[in-house]
């Protein structure tokens, strides 16, 4: 099983000018703890929207790599987005799902991945071009290295240990947005 924070740190250490959007919950807490940066977009609610937002970013900035940090519960709320992602087929998109098989922040209720649902197979069935399922840190690191060197879209399904943190990213939505857009050099 993969240590979520260690896996997030491995990713963050590789980042240069990538756009990163992180789902509510542990995905964004671990991203912030691993390294805050202006091009991190933290979602404070909107469960399930990280993947759709990442697709929009990838469409707007085809020259930049876009990374979605998702959770199993969040993705289960928007499984249709995988079909949309596959249809659009953006080569600059890496979609990582941290699967701890539970809604951890609301008390650890099991998600359907604790039973019979395999999100990697769902992504394959949706038609995502490159799907990898990893259960060890070394396999995860190889998957990340490959996704950074070959065209996507990539879907990396990482089975992680349930763990959380009390560290919190900035809470002002407009601060998060303005900092992100200023760094990117764009406006509405």
């Amino acid at each position, binding site marked *: 099983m993969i240590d979520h924070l260690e896996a997030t740190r491995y990713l963050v250490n590789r980042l240069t000018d990538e*756009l990163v*959007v992180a789902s509510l919950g542990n995905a964004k807490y671990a991203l912030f703890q691993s390294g805050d940066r202006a091009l991190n*977009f933290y*979602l*404070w*609610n*909107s*469960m*399930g*929207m*990280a*993947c*759709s*937002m*990442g*697709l*929009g*970013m*990838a*469409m*707007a*900035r085809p020259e930049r790599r876009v990374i979605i940090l998702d959770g199993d519960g969040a993705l289960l709320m*928007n499984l*249709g*987005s995988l*079909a*949309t992602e596959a*249809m*659009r087929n953006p080569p600059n998109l890496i979609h990582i799902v941290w699967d701890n098989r539970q809604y951890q922040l609301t008390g650890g209720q099991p998600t359907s991945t604790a039973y019979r649902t395999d999100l990697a197979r769902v992504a394959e069935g949706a038609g995502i071009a490159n799907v990898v399922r990893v259960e060890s840190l070394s396999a995860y690191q190889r998957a990340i290295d490959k996704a950074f060197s070959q065209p996507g879209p990539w879907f990396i399904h990482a089975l992680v240990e349930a763990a959380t943190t009390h560290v919190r990213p900035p809470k002002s*939505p*407009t601060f*998060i*947005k303005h900092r*992100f*857009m200023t760094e*990117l*050099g*764009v*406006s*509405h």
Partner: protein
Amino acid sequence: MTSVTNGISPSSPGEGDPQWARTIIGVLKTYNIRFLNLVPDAIGERLLRVARGDPAFEILPLTREEEGVGVVCGQAVGGARGVLLMPTSGLGNSLNALASLAIPYRIPLPMIIGFRGDLGEFNAAQVPMGQATTAVLAALNIPAFTLTREDEVERVTDGALKLAYANEGPVALLVSTQLAGWKNEK
């Protein structure tokens, strides 16, 4: 059998496209709107018929309208402009994403909503959401404008888009059945 690939559907622009649809698409171009993100409905299809084949636009079909809120917000913070085309039922599917993403993060989100459940409706199951639409938008403080006459389409569309980008938030343009007509079905 027809095929759909990369958002290109088989129908194409023709003489039959209504003036209101040509006008709306023309105004979207003046605002440099590039992405038309949608869940199909009969009214939105009139707009798509005009936009298909125009290199200014890219079309993204969605599985559910809520996805479209996330997609337009991602496009917006990436520095590109998109709109969400959907029927009134789709507004119901979009609410938490509007309330928790587009509104608090202050992201311009023009929605062009084809009215179902109003004048000329044959389907009772469309009526409750259709009739609740303006109240739901008002409850979220989303400015909403209804297009009913051909001669107001350009001015109202232009004003609504100007407002969305100035205020950095969602704006709804409701395309009424008075303007677009309704289904023949009894």
